[in-house]
């Protein structure tokens, strides 16, 4: 019956719903970088605390991770999920503050929903029982024990199913879902992994290594490690061939190594290999000595050092008289 009061109530409810809808989709202005950083840091746990997010914790580990998040947000390359995945890839899954949406962890979402459903159903049943008990008009037909047990079993199963389904929905909506791949990301990461593969292949499978280094150079022509080691491996493999090929290889190797040195004058490996190649394949002891000296100045890594030391003594002997 449409009394005036009911109309007022309908009006109130409609207006409230409308205002809520308006407020829900309202544009609050652009999301600043700090807002984004805060959102992300609230999802990551501090590794040395218990349960605190890195947004909350003042520990030094938290500050470092916050700084990294700030850096990545500043770069603007990764999405929120990817930044969280980046941190989780290094610190392990235990820094994810929001339990996952799948697997055993999802139980934490499912159980409260199941409990709520169970309690609501129990409450409903209790009210029904009380209402029936107080009804004095028609005597209620009492069900047989087996019928009651069956309806009880069906009720329990239904309740649990509804609860679990509801819980799964909540988990899917609220739980953490991250991109599956580890080490997702830009050019720099895939370059690093190709270089790593090339390095592994290096001593035994020279051809593969050269191919891999070439691939790196396609996307990053100024990569000194690829330039240097490709040139070096080319020279090494050319030594078993004839004069003409060797000379060609020598020329390209020297050019490539020279370019690497130009790009990064402090890179020891390029300098060292240049010294070796110039002497062993070019026969120029004096230039070689110069390169070798400069190479040693730059503190080459041990494997390269091993090659250089032998050469250095040889050169000294050669240049003495």
């Amino acid at each position, binding site marked *: 019956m449409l009394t005036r009061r009911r109309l007022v109530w309908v009006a109130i409810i409609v207006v409230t719903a409308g205002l809520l809808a308006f*407020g829900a989709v309202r544009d609050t202005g652009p999301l600043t970088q700090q807002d984004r950083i805060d959102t992300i840091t609230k999802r990551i746990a501090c590794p040395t605390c218990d349960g605190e997010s890195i947004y909350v914790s003042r520990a030094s580990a938290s500050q470092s991770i916050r700084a990294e998040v700030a850096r990545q947000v500043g770069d603007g390359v990764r999405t929120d999920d990817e930044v969280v995945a980046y941190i989780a890839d290094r610190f*392990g899954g235990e820094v994810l503050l929001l339990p996952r949406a799948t697997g055993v962890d999802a139980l934490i979402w499912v159980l409260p929903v199941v409990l709520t459903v169970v309690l609501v159903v129990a409450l409903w049943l209790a009210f029904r029982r009380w209402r029936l008990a107080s009804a004095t008009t028609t005597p209620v037909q009492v069900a047989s024990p087996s019928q009651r047990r069956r309806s009880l079993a069906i009720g329990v199963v239904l309740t649990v199913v509804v609860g679990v389904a509801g819980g799964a929905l909540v988990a899917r909506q609220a739980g953490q879902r991250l991109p599956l791949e580890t080490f997702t990301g830009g050019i720099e990461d895939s370059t690093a992994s190709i270089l790593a593969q090339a390095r592994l292949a290096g001593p035994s499978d020279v051809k593969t290594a050269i191919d891999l280094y070439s691939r790196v150079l396609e996307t990053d022509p100024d990569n000194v490690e690829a330039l240097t080691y490709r040139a070096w491996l080319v020279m090494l493999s050319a030594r078993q061939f004839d004069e003409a090929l060797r000379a060609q290889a020598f020329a390209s190797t020297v050019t490539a190594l020279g370019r690497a040195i130009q790009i990064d004058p402090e890179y020891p490996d390029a300098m060292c290999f240049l010294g070796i190649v110039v002497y062993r394949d070019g026969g120029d002891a004096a230039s070689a000595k110069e390169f070798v000296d400069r190479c040693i100045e730059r503190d080459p890594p041990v494997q390269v050092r091993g090659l250089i030391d032998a050469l250095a003594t040889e050169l000294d002997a050669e240049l003495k008289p």
Partner: protein
Amino acid sequence: MLIASATAHLGRAILLAGFLAAFFGAFAAAIGARRNDPRTLRLVPRFVALASFMALAAFAVMEWAMITRDFSLLYVQKVGSSATPALYNFAAVWSALEGSILMWVLVLAGYVAAAMWWMRKRLNEPLVGWAMAVLLVVLAYFFLLSYGPANPFVIGPPGVTDGPGPNPLLQNHLLVMFHPPILYLGYVGMTVPFAFAIAALIAGKVEDGWLHLTRRWTVTAWGFLTFGIALGGWWSYEVLGWSGVWAWDPVENASLLPWITGTAYIHSVMVQERRGLLRVWNVSLLIATFSLTILGTFLTRSGVLNSVHAFSESDIGPWLLAMFVIIVAVSLVLVYLRGDQLRASGAIDNVFSREGAFLVNNVLFAVFAFVVLLGTVFPLVIEALQQRQIVVGEPFFDRLTIPIGLTMLFIMAVAPVLPWRQDGREVMSQRLLVPALVGLAALVLSLVVGASGVAPLLAFALGGFAAGSALRHLVRAVRVQRLRGFVGRANGGMIVHLGVILICVALAASNSFTRSQEIDLVTGQVATFAGHTFELIDVVEVRDARSTTVKALVKVDGDKAYSPSITKYTRIGMNVGTPSVRTSFTRDVYLTLEPPVRQDSGQARIKVFVKPLILWLWVGTFVMAFGTLLAVLPTRRRSIHEIRDEVSGR
């Protein structure tokens, strides 16, 4: 050396005496209650007095040792220091495990003594006798804990002349003097209603006055617990420097869980008072509340989980777990066997009645408690079952408790206008009209000031709705009874509700609309953010015996200077940041100093948080405390008209 070790021996002797007094007192009370023997029962007050005196003496001896910097004791070596100022040194006693257990003994003994005094003329009643027995058993157990695994009077290695002092976080704000003791007054206070619940089960009845008694005790303890939890939030805000008040830390959750079940009890017991129903449920709530205090203490002290408060892993874990298991086992057996005897006839017939609303309320609180408990222990369970570590933190709790909180606001609005025993739908639509308009007005106001997002807007609207309903009740009460309309359970309760609404609204606003930014300031230049200006005046360094502090003096909006700082505690090597806050009615401007800090460079990096409505959190807390006080004040006998009004929920 002889004198020094005398303190340790004295302390231990006192603890042993206290344990024996409580132990024999418990025996006397139990035997006296069982056999209905007044002579045996007359011994009980004497044992209580002795045990309480011993608790006070033990605490006094510990404080004496701390004040005189008696480094022969291991505990003083751990948390005492010649450089700690007097007040913080006094509070240092409860800054670590052994001292906190000692304080627990003290507070519990105080409560036992108070209960004994209150019931001194009724000791011959079986309910009272059994309750005293339970209280003394618990007290004896805590004395045992303090004498055994958590002994503060252990003699430390000789030759130590100074100590590091308490954790720096516990030395830089006076709140450390208040927060733990008040929290304990709440926490430990729940032991008394628990004792009466167990007594009711053992005696098989709830007589006249049991309800009245337990309700008053519970509300008082609950009041302290509420205030203590709020002080913890204030401490987090003022000291920890992340600008928040609640982090769903396991220790915070441990104090919240008994609060949730305690609140459920306070509401549910009204159904018992009016209709005699839900007795078993209410007794279970009291038992749950106390059990949760023990469980919470176990979780945070045993090192099973780690946090800012959990001081150390110690041998006390198994003892606390054993206590929890014993309490739960005994209680469950008692409820199973004796629950039926408590049951009264009658039923709750209508979901739209006041009783129905309280039942729904119970469900809501049960789910709330379950969510908090599950989130706190879930990492433990996963670690035990799958040997991997996960963390459950704020995002989880927020997502589940926000809907629960919103539903609670709704019920807070609707329940007070519902009548007892009748279907209240018609009445509801009439009485809630004005409150609904208040809610709508609140929604409009919040939209006008720029709020957005479904959850905070709903919180504001429902908050207005609930406030309207509470105010409606108060206005009618004052109209009839004038000033006395503020006093008494129902009216005080409405004021408490108003406090809760203030807190909910403030939380919604500050959680949803905080803005922050890191700003690099240079002296002389003015930076702006969120409508405020910030100017760095100077960066100064202050040294004292225990620390070096670097402060940045920042003028906010051209007004006075605020000084966020970083303090390095030289002995411990720990850096603690201290925020500086400018409070106003609409928002707080919260400043922290970010490392690294270069004092002579004329530069400082600060982080600015602009947090709306924070002040109202503390206002709401005081309103709740005030309302609680009003609720426990006695009312005069009401006239038949007033009683009829109340029954029909008018």
